[in-house]
């Protein structure tokens, strides 16, 4: 089983080569464009953010060093913890989309005719402009004349103000997030399913295993590296959620915004609206640490559930 996870951690078995050998020169030539870009466009801005997080940076003019003050402020900042909770909740909801994607991927693999039509349909949201998605869903979620409440009314369910009531906003975003990400998840998981040898199913069928049993004893374990990969990608993306809240709540005078901010939104607001770049930087650094811990934790946990054949 080739998989991403082991690639991350496995040491290269080949001979180690410095730049002085021909192979090293080739490596340098191949890797130089990407690395220069990485250093100049990503690493450098990142390091300057790291420095800013220890400074008081006004919108304009010189920064002053303040030590860890931004970080201590952050610990006592209720808004930060609220945003943190919102991001965590959103991430948890997004993760619920993964079992859904597994089930759908497995079903799609079983149909012959129409498979590519399903894939295209599920993929449509991925190729649609986020601004457009935000507009459409804001309209669907409208408490007065939105489609969702109308459909619910057929079943006698009372409508809610899905993106105007802070009790529901994160859940509303979560549904859109799952809807948007389903296409990508399906494709990756579908590819994983195709790689499972057919013989395994045939053998277990001979042993009298039913479909459900097959699903849990063959499909899920053999798919686990793909599931793991999808989980990593989804957690990173979910913790960085920004677009939806920016498009759906900002620009209108929405009173639910105060209770619905995510970490990245809070960073944006501090750095670009309230002129507190240093504090914003500290928020961003903490978020990065959270993402790294979450990812490392998943790598640690994978040993107990990811199956490498």
């Amino acid at each position, binding site marked *: 089983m080739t998989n991403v996870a082991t690639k991350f951690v496995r040491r290269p078995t080949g001979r180690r080569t410095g730049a002085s050998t021909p192979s090293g020169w080739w490596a340098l030539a191949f*890797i130089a464009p990407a*690395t*220069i870009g990485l250093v100049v466009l990503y690493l450098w801005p990142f390091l300057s953010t790291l420095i800013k997080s220890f400074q008081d940076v006004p919108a304009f003019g010189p920064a002053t060093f303040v030590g860890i003050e931004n970080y201590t402020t952050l610990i006592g900042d209720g808004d930060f913890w609220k945003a943190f909770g919102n991001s965590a909740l959103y991430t948890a909801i997004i993760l619920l989309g993964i079992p859904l994607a597994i089930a759908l991927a497995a079903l799609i693999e079983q149909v012959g005719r129409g498979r590519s039509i399903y894939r295209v349909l599920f993929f449509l949201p991925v190729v649609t402009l986020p601004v457009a998605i935000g507009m459409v869903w804001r309209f669907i979620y409208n408490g007065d004349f939105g489609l969702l409440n109308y459909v619910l009314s057929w079943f006698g369910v009372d409508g809610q*103000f899905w993106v*105007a009531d802070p009790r529901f906003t994160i859940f509303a975003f979560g549904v859109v997030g799952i809807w948007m990400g389903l296409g990508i998840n399906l494709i990756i998981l579908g590819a994983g399913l195709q790689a499972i040898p057919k013989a395994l199913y045939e053998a277990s069928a001979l042993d009298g295993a039913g479909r459900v049993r097959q699903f849990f004893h063959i499909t899920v374990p053999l798919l686990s590296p793909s599931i793991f990969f999808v989980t990593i990608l989804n957690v990173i993306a979910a913790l960085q959620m920004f677009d939806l809240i920016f498009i759906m709540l900002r620009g*209108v005078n929405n*009173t639910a915004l105060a209770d619905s901010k995510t970490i990245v939104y809070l960073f944006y607001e501090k750095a670009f*609206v*309230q002129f507190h770049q240093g504090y914003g930087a500290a928020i961003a650094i903490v978020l990065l640490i959270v993402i790294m811990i979450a990812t490392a934790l998943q790598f640690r946990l994978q040993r107990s559930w990811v199956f490498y054949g």
Partner: protein
Amino acid sequence: MKRNWIAATAMVAAATLLTACSGGSSSGASDEKVTLTYANWSEDQTPAMQQIATEFEKANPNITIKVQTLPWTEYWSTLQVGAAGGTAPDAFWMLADHFREYAKGGQLLDLSDTVKSNKIDMSVYPKAVSDSYTYEGKSFALPKDFDTNGIWYNKALFDAAGVKYPDDTWGWQDVQDAAKKLTDPAKGVWGIAAPIDSQGGFYNTILQAGGSIINPDGTASDFASPAGVAGLKFWTDLQAAGSSPTLKQLSDTEAVSMFENQKVAMYFSGAYWALRLYKNPELKDKVDVAPLPQGVKRATVTSGIGNAGYAGSKHPEELKKFLAFLGGTKAAEIQAATGTVLPAYKGTQKPWLDAMPEFHLQVFIDAIDYSVPLPVAGNASEWQGLAAQYLAPAWDGKKPVQDAAKEYQDAVDQVLAKK
């Protein structure tokens, strides 16, 4: 790894060299061809801005003006990054609540000598507006327009409910009573829109109750005083009586849209909606405007957009010329005649009134007499963001107004205390 670092350093060095070379051509003689950019955030007003630019180009053939419109949601972040990085537009719209940070940070072109040399009489602008663009005694922007508040109302809905139109005799109770009568849940019509709106809403009522919003030296807010609470209670009472769509409804559909969709009969807001309402064929004959009601006294907050210049502009002399033009009568007249907005320049407002004769727009001009500048002390863009968070429980009836006001006041004071 080391080699990559060297490559990166080389790239940066090359980049620095490039800028050094291209930066040399900034000193310009007055007859040199020059292009200035002029940024705004309103598609609605862009045609008028374009017309003003064309007019200026006619008088100054060597200067080309490029009008550019940024989406409102991206305007301030784009301006901030551009200003900090030396590439902001030459001229741009400024708002009073963002002004201080820019002026303090040295990002704005000092117009004091332009005012002097062009003999611009600052008294032609409403004092409240010109004062808000003055920092440490220097002028950094000339007022473009101004807005006071009035009651926009829908005559058809008033007629249907048999309620007398609002007029200058109305007090607070009249609004409460009319709003109640106008509300018809069966039809989905409410008497008034009562969102958590500072400029069009509770700032005005706090002032009308005799309060002050922020104290004169900008160190403390006044929301929890008896007047402050009374001013907030005006709105929470409307909510409690069911005379307004709920806060949630107003979050889904903004108050102005509710008014445009004819779901609310009254909407307290500024002069800037006039053209949009007038252009709407459904509303043109149904809408009119009346003065804000009287509380303990008459009051409205006033504010206005300022035309500011970027201190880092490569063509400061041409830019000053352009800004002086923007602050002059010609630019004001174009804004007025097109009905775009109420120009700040005294005496140029008549064409604006004439452009929309069906609306009694004079109320906005009369309101100058009792207007108070929009408070912008301290880091205004920070503390202004707090209103919804602290006041929503009071609007929803979940917390006594007094308590919400106290918490709100403490939070605002904390921001004001920072610097």
